[in-house]
């Protein structure tokens, strides 16, 4: 090679002038001239080398001739050849164009799909249903992600036994058990439901082919059955089915949009296509007015009493009369919303809203308030209590007529203290039935309370014609029978007395708040001023009478030393489905308002069908109310109204306190049952 290389240099240097490309040089393009020099040198050299080779192989003459022909060959311009070249190029272009059409038009959708699937990922951010908190910030319902583990043995790259061995420690099952499941089908075997995030992470780290971990939402109720009747539950599709979960689903649900993101070759996400606000999940939560601490106390006491008296069910309600917010709503028996599918379907309805009952004596303070407001009676008026009377040939008597007989002249306060039916009939008889009916309607009987819990049922009140025509209907209504209402309506009605005469709406939802406690949305009912029903004076007068009931009358079991508590017991017979009243089924209740000097809370306990001779409002329901009031005092740090150990109660006009009654008396269960009404037939 080196030898052959030398002649090239020599030849170029030796014959610069004879070079055929000298003509090119002359037209001024010196640079191309040197190139062509080089090229022609190369050609010359190669031909010489070829000649030498040929010489050594075949004879010189043939090779020389061939080379000579090659050197002197001139391409003749040919139209055919031009056309062929043109056709080949054009054909290639057309083919390329066709391929382009195939890729861009025919196969475009498929290819696009393939590319997208490789480059993009669908990010489903975990946007949970909004949590529900109580008024002090305890979480009542919160979402968390759970995973379901599916196995597809057909896609396994390892033997089933190895996979089973790997899965066993994470799932907490024996490999044999997993293996048995894996043998049942080729794919789509559900190995585990509701796996935690950490377990799912560990499974993903194993990187086993043929397992699938789709994410789901799960609603967790950490307090279990504590607030089930208020909060409700969500079904497997995250749809609210009861309570606030149902009635406020629009506030709780957040739309989940999956976001398509580009992915780099390494698999990391590229945020260029993220919609605005993607990262910002609003931190709102639904705040309830329920206080789970009071709720827990109420639940414990209610459970004890229901068990003790073998009652069918019971409910405790606490309402803040200043705004109608419910501090407590406990129903017993209840259910665990985490395992709603195990509960009896009947438990899902909150019977404080859905079941009607005749309130009985707890309604008497309302009747007194109506009579006072219409000026039909005076607070210090005295009525003759015969113990038993006939109205339209129907007998009406006091519950204690058989033992106490006629009580003679009694004040309005004493009528309430002793829960006298006859006395109440006399008070109501001071009014025109029509006017009385108007008032019953005005306080909302026969209507719903408008609370924000779902499935509320309106109370029942006879039509005006039936009510006003016979005198028995106003008479039975005087002691709370002959019409029906829900426990929550009873609380609302007593809320009129507690709030200075205003009809407030009981509600459990305080609003949507953010983490900083700033309100984002609040219900409208909080903004509308409530309707004034009674004058504040009337309400206060009745409250003082009710205070006397707790101090001296049937409500002694609810007394709290040092605090002024008003209340009224009620023991009503239950109406039977076929008309009339059931012999042994009664519903006992106690409604309390406190503190009397600055009324704030309405506490009601209603126990359905307690059994036993001593099952009355004063024995079954009143102790529950006392415990709840105790809890409210300690939690709200309400200072005592007066020093303990001193007589309570201010003199009420026309009220003669029973001598000897002192709050320091031992709080033995009231010896006298509260109220019992004689069956009042319904037409």
């Amino acid at each position, binding site marked *: 090679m080196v030898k052959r290389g030398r002649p090239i240099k020599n030849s170029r240097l030796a014959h610069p002038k004879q070079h055929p490309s000298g003509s090119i040089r002359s037209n*001024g393009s010196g640079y191309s001239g040197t190139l062509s020099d080089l090229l022609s040198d190369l050609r010359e050299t190669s031909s010489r080398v070829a000649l030498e080779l040929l010489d050594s192989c075949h004879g010189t003459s043939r090779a020389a001739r061939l080379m000579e022909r090659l050197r002197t060959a001139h391409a003749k311009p040919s139209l055919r050849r031009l056309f062929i070249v043109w056709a080949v190029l054009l054909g290639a272009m057309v083919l390329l164009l066709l391929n382009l059409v195939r890729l861009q038009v025919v196969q475009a959708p498929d290819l696009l799909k393939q590319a997208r699937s490789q480059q993009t990922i669908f990010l489903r951010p975990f946007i949970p249903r909004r949590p529900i908190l109580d008024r002090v910030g305890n979480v009542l319902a*919160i979402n968390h992600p759970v995973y379901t583990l599916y196995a597809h043995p057909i896609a396994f790259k390892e033997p089933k036994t190895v996979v089973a061995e790997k899965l066993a420690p994470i799932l907490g099952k024996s490999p044999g058990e997993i293996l048995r499941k894996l043998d049942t089908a080729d794919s789509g075997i559900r190995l585990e439901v509701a796996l935690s995030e950490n377990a799912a992470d560990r499974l993903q780290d194993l990187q086993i082919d043929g397992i699938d971990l789709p994410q789901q939402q799960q609603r967790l109720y*950490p307090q279990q059955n504590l607030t089930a009747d208020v909060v409700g539950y969500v079904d497997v599709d995250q749809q609210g089915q009861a309570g606030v979960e149902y009635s406020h689903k629009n506030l709780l649900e957040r739309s989940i949009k999956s976001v398509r993101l580009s992915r780099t070759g390494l698999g990391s996400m590229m*945020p260029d296509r993220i919609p605005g606000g993607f990262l910002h999940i609003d931190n709102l939560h639904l705040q309830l007015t329920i206080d789970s601490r009071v709720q827990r106390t109420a639940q414990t006491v209610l459970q004890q009493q229901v068990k003790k008296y073998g009652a069918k069910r019971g409910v405790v309600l606490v309402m803040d009369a200043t705004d109608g917010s419910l501090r407590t709503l406990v129903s017993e028996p209840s259910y665990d919303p985490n395992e709603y599918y195990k509960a009896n379907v009947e438990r899902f309805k909150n019977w404080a809203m859905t079941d009607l009952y005749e309130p009985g004596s707890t309604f008497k303070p309302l009747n007194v308030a109506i009579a006072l407001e219409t000026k039909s009676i005076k607070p210090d008026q005295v009525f003759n209590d015969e113990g038993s009377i006939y109205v339209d040939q129907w007998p009406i008597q006091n519950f204690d007529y058989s033992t106490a007989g006629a009580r003679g002249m009694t004040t309005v306060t004493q009528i309430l203290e002793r829960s006298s039916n006859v006395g109440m009939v006399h008070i109501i008889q001071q009014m025109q039935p029509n006017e009385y009916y108007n008032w019953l309607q005005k306080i909302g009987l026969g209507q719903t309370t408008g609370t924000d819990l779902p499935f509320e049922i309106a109370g029942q009140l006879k039509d005006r014609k039936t009510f006003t025509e016979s005198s028995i209907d106003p008479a039975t209504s005087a002691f709370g029978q002959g019409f029906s209402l829900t426990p929550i309506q009873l609380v609302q009605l007593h809320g009129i007395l507690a709030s200075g005469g205003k009809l407030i709406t009981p509600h459990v939802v305080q609003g949507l708040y953010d983490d900083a406690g700033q309100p984002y949305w609040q219900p409208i009912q909080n903004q509308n001023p409530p309707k004034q029903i009674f004058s504040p004076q009337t309400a206060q007068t009745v409250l003082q009478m009710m205070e006397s009931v707790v101090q001296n009358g049937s409500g002694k079991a609810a007394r709290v030393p040092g605090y002024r508590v008003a209340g009224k017991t009620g023991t009503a017979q239950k109406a039977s489905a076929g008309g009339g009243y059931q012999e042994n089924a009664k519903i006992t209740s106690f409604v309390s308002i406190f503190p009397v000097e600055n009324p704030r809370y309405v506490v009601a306990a209603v126990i359905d069908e307690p059994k036993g001779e001593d099952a009355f409002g004063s024995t079954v329901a009143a102790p529950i109310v006392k415990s709840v009031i105790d809890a409210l005092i300690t939690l709200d740090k309400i200072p005592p109204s007066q020093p303990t150990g001193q007589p309570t109660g201010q003199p009420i006009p026309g009220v003669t306190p029973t001598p000897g009654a002192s709050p320091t008396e031992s709080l033995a269960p009231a010896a006298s049952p509260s109220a019992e009404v004689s069956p009042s037939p319904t037409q």
Partner: protein
Amino acid sequence: MSAVLKSSRRKRSASNHSQVYPSALDARRTATFSPIGVKRLPSQDIVPTWVRSLLMVQRASVVATFALAGSVLAVYGWTVYSQQVWGKEYQHLETLRRNERQLTTNKEMLKDQIAKQGNRPGTVLTPQSPDKMIFLTPASSQGSVATASPQAPPSGVEADSKGTAPLGY
């Protein structure tokens, strides 16, 4: 580069001319000394203004091109890097959110458990009750010594407040 090449080519062609076409050189010589008119030859050293300005433009554009190319690279690198950082930070955010959720859930479940334990028989926890509470009425503005409400039972808190021990630091 090209300028250098051109000049060398010019030189070579000039030498070629001198060798190949001596008559042309003679002709030029005769033209220089012709009495018809003295033409001044264009000087190699004097560069016209427009060429100079073009050169300036060229130099400036070279600098600008390098600067732009550099900045393009930088911006491109930044976009790639920032996306990587975003991906990492997003995962971090998800972890933090998960931790928050788990903390909240565990806290609430613990609360429930403790409350339930308190209700069990044999527990040392007792519910609060009003008779175990102490209410102190605020001291009058003139009195320097904190006075408890006369109704309130004497308490340890009261005794401490009257004592000489400092309340705090």
